[in-house]
């Protein structure tokens, strides 16, 4: 029993060590790729597949988040006569939390799964070994462009989700629920700061990085066969999803501390 527990612990530590080395190698290759113009075509093609291809699904997610928030929050606020402040609640929620997190979750499903499936299939069909046998670093060729594409485009995709969330909320609040348009925007503008928009979008850097590196690692280490690839995809999605939630929490704590340091009075208002 103790032997089994020790064995499992050692295996877990070994796994974490391998993952940490993969992150280190992947990060170094990504930085190198940024300064090597020869890598740009690879990065562009991944940006197209990962970023451009995700725009519709991210916009739909954002729009529905905004609309649902309007529907759910209206009754509570109207009961207190505060329905004109509905925009504050919707836009703060969308810009700070729901837009970035739900956009990242959608990306984890769409992009993370696809990355793992693609690299996992390459792994089991020995394409990754073939790259190594040619004296080429597969992490530099396969992982770096994907990490950079996710890292750079997730913040932009979050802005799309925010935009559609705001428009969706506006559509339901003003056109369906009859809230005064001027009041809706005025209250929203007073409450939503540039800080909220910027920190909300910049979360995407961390979310995107986590989705790409977990997806790639699971693909690189997946077991043989269709079942191996399937399991790797599931593990990649679950891992990315949990990472998004953990990163979001840590990020909230850190950004709040920074905000309190620079604007101690503002935070009380």
């Amino acid at each position: 029993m103790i032997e089994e527990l020790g064995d499992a612990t050692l295996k877990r530590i070994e796994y974490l060590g391998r993952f940490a080395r993969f992150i280190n190698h992947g990060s170094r290759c990504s930085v190198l790729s940024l300064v090597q113009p020869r890598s740009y075509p690879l990065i562009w093609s991944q940006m197209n597949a990962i970023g451009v291809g995700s725009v519709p699904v991210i916009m739909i997610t954002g729009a529905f988040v905004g609309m649902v928030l309007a529907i759910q929050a209206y009754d509570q606020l109207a009961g207190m006569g505060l329905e004109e402040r509905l925009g504050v609640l919707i836009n703060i929620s969308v810009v700070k939390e729901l837009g970035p997190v739900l956009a990242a979750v959608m990306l984890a499903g769409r992009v993370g799964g696809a990355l793992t499936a693609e690299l996992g299939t390459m792994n089991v069909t020995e394409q990754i070994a073939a790259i190594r046998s040619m004296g080429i670093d597969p992490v530099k060729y396969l992982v770096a462009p994907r990490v950079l594409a996710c890292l750079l485009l997730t913040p932009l995709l979050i802005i799309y989700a925010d935009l559609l969330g705001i428009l969706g909320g506006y559509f339901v609040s003003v056109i369906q629920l009859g809230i005064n348009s001027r009041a809706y925007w005025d209250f929203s503008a007073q409450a939503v700061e540039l800080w909220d928009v910027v920190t909300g979008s910049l979360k995407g850097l961390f979310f995107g990085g986590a989705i790409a590196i977990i997806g790639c690692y699971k693909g690189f280490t997946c077991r043989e066969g269709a079942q191996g690839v399937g399991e790797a995809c599931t593990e990649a999605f679950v891992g990315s999803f949990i990472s998004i939630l953990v990163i979001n929490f840590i990020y909230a704590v850190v950004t709040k501390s920074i905000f309190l340091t620079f604007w101690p009075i503002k935070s009380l208002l």
Partner: protein
Amino acid sequence: MIRAAIDNNSGIIVVRELTKRYDERLVLDNVSVAIEKGKTTVIIGRSGCGKTVLMKHMIVLERPSSGEVYFKGQRIDHLSEKQLAEIRRQYGFCFQMSALFDSLTVYENIIFPIQQKQKITDWKAMDELVKGKLAMVGMDGFQQQYPASLSGGQKKRVALARAIALDPEVIMYDEPTTGLDPVRSDIINELILKLKHELHVTSIVVTHDMNSAYKIADRIIMFHNGKIIADGDAEHIRNHPNPTVQEFIHGKVSEAELAALRLGGTRYNTQYSPEDFK
């Protein structure tokens, strides 16, 4: 003829006292072998006996649990992936499943190793080079096709063209005829011989196809349970006294295995003996 003891310069590739374990499973058991330059060495043995693992150690795609690997007298098994890059470019590796990149055309697959090594400026010369490599394997005209549209034999030939793109000194073939019909297998055998004669390369072939082994080999090494049990030319292997070698080359199952198969049958409770109906 019995060979002399192996030292680091005994051949272009030298493996010394190589042992490989995956967890508790022993795959290579203290293997020592020297691969001669310019010759075709064929490694035969049953599926799962460790022959592909041995070949992958020769290019350090796998790291040994213990033992050493030398290439042209230089120890390579302990080098970093970065240090190995230059050495690996002197090898061409044909994988069992061809391992062509699905997302690239045949043309892009062949220029891939070159493109990753240097910036291509003279595309006309590159077109000529690709044409030449594909012509060598009889696949000229397939440049713009994707691997998905090729047959198994065609994929193997394109993989061969890609393996020779950087003019390697050593070409490794992992089960090159597996999954092909006899005619296509023979085309691959002829190609291996052609490349050996035209490019003067050292070839290492892992196979369990004895027709192929007899046809292309200068030397045949038989592997069994992670150890070399026979090593010599085709004639030597044909007449080898070891029963395991004879069973393998004639494709016969041993008496012990037959007995195990018989014992493995299922006996049903509802069976009747002929006496029950009398």
